[in-house]
C-alpha cells in the first residue's frame, strides 16, 4: 500500500492520531532537555559522524580486525551475506546445542531477517523479552517504531492483549500492574530457555568485544541464564576503538529517549565459563548501500529513533503506514535500497522539512537523501507515469514566459468565474479540506507594468 493511503486510514482516527503525535513529541521534548545538558553536543555529533565516515571507508579492514580479535577472545564468528544465511546460521547453532526454547532481546536486524517466523516454522519457541516486543509478539504485529515497538498501542489495548494471551482479568490498564504481570511471565521464560539471542549496538574492532544497550535488563538476564549466546550484528555497527564508544553511548540514549545513558550498557568480550558466544555478522544489502555514494551515510545510523520522534509525518501517520520494517525518515532512505519498486512511495512521505537531519546524532543528511531517492526512483520509472507526465508538462510551461503567463490568466479566469462544484470536486485534492486562495484580477507582473512604467 502507498504511504499516503495507509496514512489516511491512520488519520481517520483523529483521537489516536493526536495521542500518537503527542506521545512521540513528548519524547522529542525530553530529548531536547537532555541534549541541552551537554555543552559539547554539536561537537559530539560532528565527531560521531566523522568516526562513522572513517568506518565506512575502512570497513573491510575494520571488520577483519574485529573478527580476528573476537576469535582470539573465544567467540565463534559467522558471516551471513543475506537474511537467509543469517537465519540458517541461527538454526544450525540452535540445533547443534539442542535448543528448543530461545529468549531474544531487542534486535531490529532479526526483524529485518524475519527470524522469528523462520525459527517457529522449524519448531523452536522464540520469546521476545523486551516488554514492547513481547506485547506485539502476542499480537503477531511487527514493531511500529525501532525503539518504542508498541508505541501505537494504548495501555488499555495492552491489558486486552494480556487478557487474551496471559489469561489476566479483563479491563486492567494500570501500567505498573501490567508490567509486573509481564515480568512474572517473562521470568519463567528466562529460567526455562536454553539459549539467548541479542542484537549488537557497537562492535569494537580493536578489542573484538561488542556492546548491547537496553533499558530493561532483559539482555543480561537472558545471556546470564543461558549456555548459548547468539548475537547478530550488521556490518555497519563497527567502531574502530574502545575509546570511541563513549562518543556514541553519550549520543544514543539522549537522542532515543532523553536519558543520559541507557539503564544497561552490556559489554561482551569473552564467554563466561561453561558458555559459548556465537556472533553473526550480516551484510543483507549493506555492502550495496555502501557502494551508493549518495546514500552511504544512511549506514551511519545508530538506531536511536530520534528522526521518527521528530518527524511530523511519522507522528501523524504511524509506523505501519510505511511499507518497510524500519519506518520513518531513516527507513525511507534505507527501504528504496532494499526494494525500489515496493517502497517507492516512502521517500515522498516527507515535506523535506529537514528536522530529521538536524536531530540526527550522527548527522545523516536524511532529507537530502529523500530528495535524491525521489530523483532516482523517478528516473528509474518506479513512480506513477501520470505524475511524471504532469511534471514534464509543468516543466515546459514554466520554461516559457508567454506560456506561463497565458496559463496563469486561464487558471485565474477559471477559478474566478467557475461555479463552486466545478472547482471543488474529487479531482481537487487541495480543496477536499482547504479553500483555494481568492483570485486577484491581476498578477504582480500586470500591476508592475502599470505602476512602475518608468522601470520598464
Amino acid at each position, binding site marked *: 500500500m502507498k504511504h*499516503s493511503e495507509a496514512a489516511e486510514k491512520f488519520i481517520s482516527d483523529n483521537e489516536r492520531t493526536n495521542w500518537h503525535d503527542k506521545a512521540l513529541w513528548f519524547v522529542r521534548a525530553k530529548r531536547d532537555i537532555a541534549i541541552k545538558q551537554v*555543552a559539547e553536543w554539536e561537537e559530539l555529533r560532528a565527531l560521531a559522524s566523522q568516526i562513522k565516515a572513517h568506518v565506512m571507508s575502512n570497513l573491510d579492514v575494520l571488520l577483519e580486525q574485529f573478527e580476528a580479535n573476537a576469535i582470539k577472545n573465544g567467540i565463534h564468528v559467522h558471516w551471513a551475506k543475506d537474511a537467509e544465511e543469517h537465519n540458517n546460521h541461527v538454526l544450525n547453532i540452535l540445533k547443534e546445542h539442542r535448543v528448543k526454547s530461545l529468549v531474544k532481546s531487542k534486535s531490529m536486524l532479526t526483524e529485518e531477517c524475519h527470524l522469528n517466523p523462520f525459527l517457529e516454522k522449524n519448531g523452536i519457541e522464540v520469546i521476545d523479552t523486551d516488554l514492547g516486543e513481547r506485547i506485539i509478539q502476542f499480537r503477531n504485529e511487527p514493531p511500529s517504531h525501532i525503539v518504542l515497538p508498541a508505541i501505537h498501542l494504548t495501555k488499555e489495548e495492552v491489558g486486552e492483549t494480556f487478557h487474551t494471551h496471559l489469561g489476566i482479568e479483563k479491563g486492567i490498564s494500570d501500567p505498573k500492574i501490567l508490567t509486573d504481570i509481564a515480568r512474572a511471565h517473562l521470568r519463567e521464560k528466562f529460567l526455562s530457555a536454553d539459549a539467548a539471542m541479542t542484537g549488537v549496538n557497537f562492535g569494537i574492532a580493536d578489542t573484538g568485544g561488542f556492546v548491547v544497550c537496553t533499558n530493561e535488563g532483559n539482555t543480561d538476564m537472558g545471556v546470564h541464564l543461558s549456555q548459548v549466546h547468539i548475537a547478530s550484528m550488521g556490518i555497519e555497527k563497527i567502531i574502530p576503538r574502545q575509546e570511541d564508544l563513549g562518543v556514541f553511548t553519550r549520543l544514543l540514549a539522549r537522542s532515543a529517549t532523553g536519558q543520559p545513558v541507557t539503564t544497561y550498557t552490556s559489554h561482551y568480550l569473552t564467554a563466561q565459563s561453561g558458555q559459548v558466544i556465537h556472533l553473526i555478522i550480516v551484510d543483507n544489502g549493506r555492502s550495496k548501500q555502501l557502494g551508493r555514494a549518495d546514500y552511504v551515510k544512511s549506514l551511519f545510523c545508530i538506531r536511536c529513533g530520534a528522526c521518527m520522534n521528530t518527524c511530523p509525518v511519522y507522528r501523524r501517520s504511524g509506523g505501519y503506514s510505511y511499507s518497510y520494517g524500519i519506518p520513518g525518515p531513516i527507513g525511507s532512505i534505507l527501504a528504496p535500497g532494499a526494494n525500489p519498486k515496493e517502497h517507492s512511495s516512502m521517500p515522498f512521505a516527507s*515535506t523535506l522539512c529537514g528536522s530529521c537531519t538536524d536531530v540526527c546524532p550522527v548527522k545523516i543528511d536524511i532529507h537530502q537523501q529523500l530528495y535524491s531517492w*525521489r530523483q532516482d526512483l523517478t528516473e528509474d520509472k518506479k513512480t506513477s507515469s501520470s505524475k511524471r507526465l504532469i511534471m514534464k508538462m509543468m516543466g515546459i510551461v514554466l520554461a516559457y514566459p508567454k506560456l506561463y503567463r497565458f496559463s496563469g490568466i486561464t487558471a485565474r479566469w477559471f477559478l474566478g468565474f467557475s461555479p463552486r462544484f466545478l472547482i471543488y470536486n474529487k479531482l481537487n485534492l487541495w480543496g477536499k*479540506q482547504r479553500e483555494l486562495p481568492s483570485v486577484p484580477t491581476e498578477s504582480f507582473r500586470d500591476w508592475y507594468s502599470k505602476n512602475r512604467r518608468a522601470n520598464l
Partner: protein
Amino acid sequence: MKIGLFIPCYIDQFYPKVGIATLELLEKLGCNVGYPMDQTCCGQPMGNSGSEKEAVKTAELFVKNFQTYDCIVAPTGSCACYVKEHYDILKQTDATKYVRENIYELAEFITDILKVDQIDATFPYKVGFHSSCHGQRGLRLAQSSELNLPFFSKQKQLLSMVKGIEIVEIDRRDECCGFGGTFCVTEEAVSVKMGKDKVADFVRNGAEVITSGDVSCLMHLDGIIKRQKYPVKVLHIAEILNNTIER
C-alpha cells in the same frame, strides 16, 4: 546596487499584494529594484517531485533573467533555498554560480546586507511567526530547535522593530506546517492534519495574525483557516514590515 526582485509564480498569480509589499518595502529602504519581466518560477515543484530534469529549462531561464543584478531578493525562503541548493542540476557556468551565491531571502537581505536596525512600520496586533522549514533549516534564517546552539531568528528580529506588535510564542516553535509542495496533494491527509495542528497552536496561544517568510505555507494554512473558520488571518512578513496604518 541594483536588486533583481524575484516574485515566485504562485505569488505572482495569487498573491500580487505580497509582491507589491515586498517591492515597496525595498524601495522604502532605499533600494534600486528591478523586476525582470520574463521571470516565471525557480523550478522547485518539479525538483521536489522527483523530476528535477524537467526543472533544468526553468532554472536556466531563471539564471538568464537574474544574472545581471548585484543581488537577487525574493520574498520566500523556499525558492531561494532551491536556487542555492539544487541548481547543481545546471552546468556550473559563471552566471549560474553567481546567481546561486547572490540570491537572498527578503529578511536575510534586510538584516545581513542592508543591516537595517530600524523599520518605520506599525502593526498593533498579536502576531504568531511561522518559521518555514526551507528558510529555517535550509537557509538558516533561524536556529533550529533540534540543535544545541544559541537561538536567533532574522525574521523575528525584524518583526520586533515594528511598532505596536506583540509577538506570540507557540508550543512547537519550528514544526513544519505540512505544505511541502506537491506533498500537499499527494499526501493530502497528513498535510491537512499537520496544517490543522499548526493553526490550532497559533490560535491556542492567542495569535490574531499568522505571518511567515513563505506564502506557500500561508496559502496552505489559510485554506484550512477559511474552511474551518478559525479566528485568525495570515499575512506575509513583507505586508507587516510595509504597514504603517494604525488599527
